[in-house]
């Protein structure tokens, strides 16, 4: 039965991507291509200590022997890594100490993105690190944080100023040999965020990084490392946008989190990279490895992600629950529309005793998109009393999209428990009619049902970001039929 609301659901289209503008800037960019020389140059430009160059070259050697993974339910042409720019930075001097030194064009860009980084316009309660192509261009609230011993800076800066911490932790959660993309990232990463929270400190601000890919043809290979020392807490949020280009752009990041005894990291992502147009032209290829290690006892790592952008998403934020009684959480909303493809989920590796994990995944597919949840729950015999609860729900909008659920549950030992539930649903016409009969417009009715579907995840987002996420969902699904 072809009725009005069903035809509207069939034709849901994302509203024009509002962050798709380009900033005209003079940049220092390497020519396209990957080689040992490129890696040497990156390291030299950044004036890195010897151990970093060694780390990069070792990763590059391993990378040369690896192949692109093929097990995901993703279909895309092979990425030509020689067609990528591995380093691109705004030419004007980067003023890390005073914002007057920041190129006004960049300041304008961030204002357009709704992220004021100028001194006067700082966001209340949030410290921001702004990463533009390959480098960090601004970092707010740094001094105030330093006074209580918190280090919040770009990873390049941390390599210079805190080499002992970098040396100890980089690659300790995600070894460079982990997969094809981590090896690549370890070899060529250009910047990223570094956070260290000292013992007995609850970080008073939300820490946040905004990633912006600007230059055409440039890849973004950022590296984030967050360490939360004993009895500490930090909440971190990242946002991502990119201009709308016809070509695909590669984003291959590595994020490592470490929590020591009784500490907690809450990591939230609102990913709104450019998704390509409705015919699948352009958009970001997002191949990201995010992993946290609950190294200390009673520690906790919580991932919350809202994935709406990217032509391709390949991303599994994971937790290694090493410390006894440690807790891992993964809350995810992944929305795909048009020709987008997402293969995303998590791994919860239970090693310590009485470790617990929770996975809540909500996938929404519309248009001709494909949305896959892929998740591993693994419990070894040492993990006595381990518990996992997983809930994966999919919602299909229209009849040309695909939703898949691919869990891997591997359990050993008689005191471990796993519970996995999943369901698939659609927005029913009867539901829409019910809401419309109460005077709510069709668009609002769809938005209301979707926000209800995502509620369990959005409530994990810090403060006003939940409202923002709701709005983002509506924008992405706004219909053009009217």
């Amino acid at each position, binding site marked *: 039965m072809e009725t009005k609301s069903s035809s509207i659901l069939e034709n849901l289209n994302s509203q024009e991507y509002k962050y798709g503008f380009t900033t005209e800037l003079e940049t220092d960019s390497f020519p396209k291509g990957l080689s040992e020389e490129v890696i040497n140059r990156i390291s030299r430009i950044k004036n890195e200590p010897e151990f970093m160059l060694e780390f990069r070259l070792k990763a590059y050697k391993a990378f040369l022997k690896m192949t692109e993974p093929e097990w995901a339910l993703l279909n895309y042409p092979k990425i030509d890594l020689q067609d990528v720019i591995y380093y691109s930075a705004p030419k004007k001097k980067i003023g890390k100490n005073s914002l007057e030194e920041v190129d006004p064009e960049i300041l304008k860009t961030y204002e357009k993105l709704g992220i004021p980084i100028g001194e006067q316009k700082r966001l209340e309660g949030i410290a921001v690190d702004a990463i533009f192509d390959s480098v960090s261009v601004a970092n707010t609230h740094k001094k105030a944080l330093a006074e209580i011993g918190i280090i919040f800076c770009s990873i390049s800066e941390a390599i210079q100023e805190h080499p002992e911490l970098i040396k100890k932790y980089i690659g300790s959660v995600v070894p460079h040999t982990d997969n094809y993309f981590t090896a690549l990232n370890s070899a060529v990463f250009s910047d990223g965020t570094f956070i260290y929270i000292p013992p007995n400190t609850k970080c008073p601000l939300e820490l946040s990084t905004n990633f912006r890919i600007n230059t055409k043809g440039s890849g973004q290979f950022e590296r984030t490392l967050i360490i939360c020392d004993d009895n500490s807490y930090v909440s971190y949020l990242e946002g991502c946008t990119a201009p709308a280009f016809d070509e695909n752009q590669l984003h291959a990041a590595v994020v490592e989190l470490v929590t020591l005894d009784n500490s907690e990291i809450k990591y939230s992502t609102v990913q709104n990279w450019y998704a390509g147009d409705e015919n699948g032209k352009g958009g970001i290829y997002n191949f990201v490895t995010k992993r946290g290690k609950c190294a200390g006892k009673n520690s906790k790592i919580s991932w919350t992600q809202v994935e709406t952008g990217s032509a391709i998403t390949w991303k599994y934020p994971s937790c290694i629950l090493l410390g006894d009684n440690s807790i891992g959480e993964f809350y995810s909303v992944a929305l795909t529309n048009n020709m987008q493809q997402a293969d995303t989920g998590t791994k919860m590796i239970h090693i310590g005793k009485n470790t617990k994990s929770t996975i809540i995944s909500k996938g929404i597919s519309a248009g001709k998109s494909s949305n896959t949840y892929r998740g591993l729950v693994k419990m070894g015999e040492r993990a006595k009393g381990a518990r996992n609860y997983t809930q994966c729900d999919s919602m299909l909008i229209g*009849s040309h999209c695909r939703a898949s659920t691919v869990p891997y549950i591997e*359990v050993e*030992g008689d005191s471990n*428990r796993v519970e996995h539930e999943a369901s698939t649903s659609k927005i029913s016409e009867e539901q829409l009619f019910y809401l419309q009969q109460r005077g709510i417009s069709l668009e609002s009715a769809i938005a209301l049902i979707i926000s209800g579907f995502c509620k369990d995840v959005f409530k994990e987002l810090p403060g006003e970001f939940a409202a923002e996420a709701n709005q983002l969902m509506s924008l992405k699904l706004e219909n053009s039929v009217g």
Partner: protein
Amino acid sequence: MPNLAERNKNEIEFIEQIFRASSSMLSEIPNIRSRQETAIKRVTELGFPQKSSEDWKYYDSQPILENFFTLDICEINKLDKEIIRKHRFPECSENLLVTVNGHFSKELSSTSLTNKNISIIDFNDPDQLKKHPTEEEIINQHFAHKINQEDSFFKACNTALMSNGFLLSVPDDTEIEETIQILHFSNESCFNQTRSLIHLGKNAKLKIIVSYIGLANSHFVNNAVVELILSEGAHFKLDKIQDDTQQGILLYDLYARLMKNSNFEYNSLDLKANHSRDNIKVDLLEPGANAGLAGFYILNKDRKAHNVIKVNHLVPNCTSNQLYKGIISDSARAEFNGEINVSEGANGTNATQLNKNLLLSNTAHIDSRPQLKILADDVKCSHGSTVGELDEDEIFYLLSRGIKKDDALAMLTLSFCEEIIQKVTIDSAKQHIRNLTLENLDTTIHTANTVHKLK
């Protein structure tokens, strides 16, 4: 063609052995023969299953390679009638089919079967085929269906190497009331190819209970393939019991194709195999078809059970259910790998999938993968998986009523599997399954009991 140079010596030898053996197995019947020839080609193209493939990720096929089973036709030993009597369910004494090492045995099967408006045709008997043109047509149409696209190595092996098998066919509008029992015996060192084709005509009804039995302490592989076609409105129920000695390996491949409003019920009871692998594929080809798949596995020592299930909803308005339950102790391992595939346009699909496991020792292992792959929006699909131990509160409740701990544990464990046992058609089979379960549990419960005492 896989690069044989990359494969280990055993694999190359195995495939070469199949090649050599197959030439002497070719059927005289042209339609079967040509498919066997295609199958041999598929065997070499596919190569031995690798762990890198998602479907074989958790399966260790080394024991098959390492034991050097003979692929030649195993000599048909004279079977003691006593053994048959032991495994035969009294309800089925008049409706018995027997195969030994993959060979259909007319002498051991009941003769009264043919009076029941049901055809049992030996694949390897050209004379018999000539007399039954309808059945010949069924074989031509359905035997080794789409063998040129076959993706299972072992099924291709079976087609290439089978020297004997049977068609069981029920004509339109015929209901066979009695349950038919099929006993498959295997003995020492054989890699047996057991093959059957089951065809139900329109609105036909049939119930079968199958047992795979190993003869005393013998090592063997039983590579069984069943092809099943249910015409419009047909009802078929199949109970499969693995009643082997603990040395056997059972590879069981069932491919069912369901037409309009047909109904297929399958219950797999894995009680004794050393290791077993069920490869079940169900294609729901016309609207209104319904498939209910259930399984129960009880594993101890280092036994293994693998259930790999694909239910394909290809058209609108079909239903399917999967319910698999397992009890795993010692260092046994189980895999549940169930998939629901809903094709584009298959609206009105209603599919469920549930896997529940009890782990009773610290080295017991389960890999559970309930998967959904959905390409239609108007569907109801759900799946679930649980792994756990016996509920402490339930144990306590029974203890507080004065029940002994061993009995309480046995009671709760048995109640866990009773849901599946209840589905079996024949009462004496149910009791037999309960007995075997309890026998298995005996050692298990002692282990479990110690664990609980330590807590």
